[in-house]
């Protein structure tokens, strides 16, 4: 199987789906000739023309709103938000409209859009090119939210998202774009929305998370296995709404010691819900308090390199937390 970069997997998914289904088109700022500021849509305009790889005016509420209209009209728009930090002008269209169209019309109308947006820090982007906006949208009934950590999942989840009958927010991690590469099948396959996946089996501690930080957890787990004989069980949520409750409970029960990781600020993040689910369902199976290692509760994040590094998660931070939990 060919090894693809995470961003290439995303690009491939759009390209293949646009070839397969003429209703699919991408729209956003600079997605055309430039191919997006990260290159995710590179080549699409050349292959599919200006209308199907559509450079929009600089207006996120319109990008979302026009995509919503086109989706209701039967198209399958994939809207790109240049950075997830810049999707907030579209909040009203996402929360008040996309999320509620099926519900409010009693299933008469639907809104099958995908909104792609890069999340996360690590590119010297300062306070507005580094955020994780998951918690803003998490908990809004009617939205699905995915956040792949691997190239395989990125392609499979994006295909699933485009084919999904409901609005899907697709949060891609900009640090993963070129750092993460793994085996990606050619041609179509989907990764089901709503299903977590076990990245690593282990019996000592359970790590639950999504997106980039899981790679740090995997590295830390390898080292802990080698150095300390500690075996971590690692669950990649992949979909953060709806959460895969069964998989969460199973992973937590497996070791009785749970560490939740994400880069989004700790307070009010997805991890709080994961912790709440476990403490609601599985309290007496736990052998240690549920811990969270997340982005600190400050705006993500400063431009200067030491500050950015200090904010972000990394292998060492996770390793320390995992070791600590294992020894609890």
């Amino acid at each position, binding site marked *: 199987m060919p090894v693809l970069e995470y961003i290439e997997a995303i690009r491939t998914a759009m390209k293949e789906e646009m070839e397969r289904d003429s209703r699919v088109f991408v729209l956003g700022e600079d997605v055309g000739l430039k191919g997006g500021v990260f290159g995710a849509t590179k080549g699409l305009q050349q292959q599919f023309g200006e209308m199907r790889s559509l450079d929009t005016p600089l207006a996120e509420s319109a990008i979302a*709103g*026009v995509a919503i*209209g086109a989706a209701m*009209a*039967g198209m399958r728009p994939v809207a790109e938000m240049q950075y997830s930090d810049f999707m907030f002008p579209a909040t009203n*269209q996402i929360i008040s409209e996309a999320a*509620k169209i*099926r519900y409010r019309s009693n299933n008469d*109308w639907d809104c099958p859009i995908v909104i792609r947006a890069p999340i996360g820090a690590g590119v010297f982007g300062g306070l507005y090119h580094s955020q994780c906006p998951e918690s803003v949208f998490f908990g809004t009934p009617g939205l699905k939210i995915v956040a792949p950590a691997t190239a395989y999942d990125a392609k499979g989840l994006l295909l699933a998202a485009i084919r999904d009958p409901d609005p899907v927010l697709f949060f891609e991690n900009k640090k993963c774009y070129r750092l993460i590469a793994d085996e990606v099948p050619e041609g179509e396959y989907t990764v089901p929305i709503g299903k977590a996946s076990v990245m690593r089996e282990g019996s000592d501690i359970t790590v639950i998370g999504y997106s980039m930080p899981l790679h740090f957890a995997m590295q830390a787990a390898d080292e802990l296995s080698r150095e300390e004989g500690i075996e971590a069980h690692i669950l990649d949520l992949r979909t953060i709404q709806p959460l895969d409750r069964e998989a969460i409970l199973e992973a937590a029960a497996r070791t009785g010691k749970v560490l939740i990781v994400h880069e989004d600020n700790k307070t009010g993040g997805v991890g709080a819900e994961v912790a709440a689910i476990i403490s609601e369902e599985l309290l007496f199976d736990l052998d240690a308090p549920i811990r969270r290692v997340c982005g600190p509760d400050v705006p993500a994040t400063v431009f200067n390199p030491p500050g950015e590094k200090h904010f972000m998660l990394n292998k060492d931070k996770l390793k320390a937390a995992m070791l600590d939990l294992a020894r609890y």
Partner: protein
Amino acid sequence: MTQSGSVKNHTRHAALGLTDEQAVRMYELMQLARKYDERGQLLQRAGKVNFNISGINQEPSQVAMAFAMDTERDWFLPYYRDYAFVLSVGMTVKELMLALFGKAEDPNSAGRQLPGHFGSKRLRIVTGSSPVTTQVPHAVGFALAAKMRGENSVSLVSFGEGSSNQGDFHEGCNFAGVMKLPVIFVCQNNGYAISVPLSKQTAGRISDRALGYGFPGFQVDGNDPLEVYRVFKEAHDRALAGEGPTLIEVVTYRVTPHSASDNDLAYRTKEEVEHHRAKDGIPAYRRYLTDIGLWNDEKEQELLARIRKEIDEATEYGERAPFQSVEDAFRYVYAETDEAGEVR
């Protein structure tokens, strides 16, 4: 339809390409909407329904704009005062009553949304919400889809003058302008946004905003349905000819309080309201039809009786109809799929 009558082409409506039947039907729809709306107010005051919002005085223009549209191909994104418009594109009084009573059979939302929140795929009426102006970019999306698929379809979106000050108005208009999309943007300027008069909403003229987006904008007197028809027909023709969007500001006046719970005399005078009520477009249009021999008192009586019957029956039906079950009220947050994963 063919034109009939001896006044052919000598009447204003015929000159615009409207048949006598159409001209009369327009009148009937204005009256139907007015009477429905008055009943809605009554029901609300009697405590039979929990919410009502009125479109009274805006019917002549709403009917006229509907008549300029193609109900087989176009897409409609009305706002909460557009009763006369949705009646004109095919919604029934019974359906409106079901919505007013919030009943399961309401095709708009099964009683989930407030009355006045229209939506019916069958009638090409796009589901709308309460946050104002969000429908403007949607209309642009429908027009974009039409252009992508090479369909001869226009989308019409309406909203109030207060709502035209939301960012989504600007972003939607500009997007449509850049891509020369077949959209008609309709601002029903009725002078107030709840308590806030036009002079506190904007210092400009709303129709003038079109210039900044590179397409034409017109102001038209909402009490003159034939003039409204003309302006919309031209906009529709331009849209179909690939000449892009048009912004139309329909000048009207909200004679009722904003909604049932609003005491409008806290912010405007009775005299002001009466002044505008006297300019009601419905009697004026009736005079027009009467003058050219298409209408008379007998027809009027017959019409009013027919309407009353229709509304009475609809009211009764709506009142008796069941609510959506509480279990069903939790459905359709997401698509329901069968075992094979297909959307049902």
